[in-house]
């Protein structure tokens, strides 16, 4: 009955979480592959944080189930040390030094790496003798990242941990995350609004909207299903016939449309010959289109594709 060793998968089965009258998650079914870096995307209030909370046994489902490594994480002595949720600045002991907090984490987390912690403390220029209550926003986030990476938990959920970090620090975080993921494989769930920055790190993508799963797909498959078409209005209109259109813009005689389409080789050349400019759709733009009001049908279409 124990969960397997190594990276832990995350599964939600008909998961519903309600706070009083507000429904944060509504009959959610999803599966995060073990050992992958999965992006958890969604607008504010979409239910991402609630999903993360339930996965890490911070709260219980109202109905339905969440399974980590095939087991219920709630009050699970064997499983919980292998599950880590870092929220914004991390849940640390404010009145103890960073060094003490790291010692505590090392005791609690079976795979904790002291070397990684030391290296990251240096990279983010954090003083081990400082206390969290005296740190700036960015430094608190950086420390949360140090804990998040060095703990090497088999299911690591990082919820908006980049807040307050400047761009160079964020890239240092992505580098550190990838490096250690390669060195010590684990399941990473990364929740971020900066989709453009994290897109290339992701193997799998889950998008939540209003407490429901909008789509859950392999990142590469998702990347090829969006096409941006620019050109003369008539040609663009001809191109989009029969395809799911996510968005349209027009300026004078030129139009631009974002569509869901997987093009055969010939089709692309034909389109170019007709004077159309084809381009990929960045995940961020795809996300904005899909989570716009009224886009639910498009998302379903995408999920079926």
């Amino acid at each position, binding site marked *: 009955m124990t969960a397997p060793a190594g990276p832990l998968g995350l599964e939600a089965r008909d998961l519903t979480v309600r706070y009083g009258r507000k429904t944060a998650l509504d009959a959610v079914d999803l599966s995060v592959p073990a050992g992958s870096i999965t992006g958890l995307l969604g607008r504010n209030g979409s239910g991402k944080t609630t999903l993360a909370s339930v996965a890490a046994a911070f709260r219980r489902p109202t109905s339905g189930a969440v399974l980590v490594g095939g087991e219920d994480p709630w009050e699970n002595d064997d499983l919980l040390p292998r599950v880590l949720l870092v929220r914004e600045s991390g849940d640390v002991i404010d009145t103890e030094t960073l060094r003490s907090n790291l010692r505590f984490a090392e005791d609690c987390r079976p795979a904790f790496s002291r070397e990684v912690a030391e290296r990251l403390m240096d990279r983010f220029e954090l003083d081990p003798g400082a206390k969290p209550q005296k740190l700036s926003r960015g430094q608190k986030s950086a420390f949360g990242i140090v804990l998040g990476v060095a703990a090497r938990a088999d299911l690591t959920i990082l919820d908006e941990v980049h807040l307050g970090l400047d761009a160079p620090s964020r*890239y240092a975080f992505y580098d550190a995350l990838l490096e250690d993921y390669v060195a010590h494989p684990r399941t990473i769930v990364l929740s971020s609004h900066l989709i453009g920055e994290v897109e290339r790190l992701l193997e799998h993508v889950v998008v939540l909207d209003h407490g429901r799963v909008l789509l859950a797909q392999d990142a590469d498959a998702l990347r090829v299903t969006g096409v941006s078409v620019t050109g003369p209005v008539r040609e663009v209109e001809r191109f989009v016939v029969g395809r799911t259109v996510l968005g349209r813009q027009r300026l004078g005689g030129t139009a631009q449309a974002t569509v869901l389409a997987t093009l055969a080789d010939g089709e692309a050349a034909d389109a170019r010959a007709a004077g159309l400019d084809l381009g990929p759709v960045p995940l961020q733009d795809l996300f904005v289109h899909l989570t716009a009001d009224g886009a639910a049908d498009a998302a379903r279409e995408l999920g079926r594709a």
Partner: protein
Amino acid sequence: MSTTQYATTFRINPATAAKAFAQLVDDGILYKRRGVGMFVAPGAPDRLRAEGRETFFAETVDPVADHARALGIPLEDVIARLRAHAARTAGDRQDGAAS
């Protein structure tokens, strides 16, 4: 460079990088020697150049012709410019180190 090194250097997901390399192996551009690493297949550079040639004409040259027409530039001017540019850079390459 191993696929994971490639992934961490260019900050992309290792699984994606692995897929890309696997694709190149399938296409016969690369081959893998177990325990040693990945190598460029013989004849691959020529093949890539041949494919590149087609793509170059379809995606770079044709649009140039279209663009020139849109701007009202006569095609002869474009050709003359191309010849002059090629002559100039060929001279530079002879003077400087070989590429």
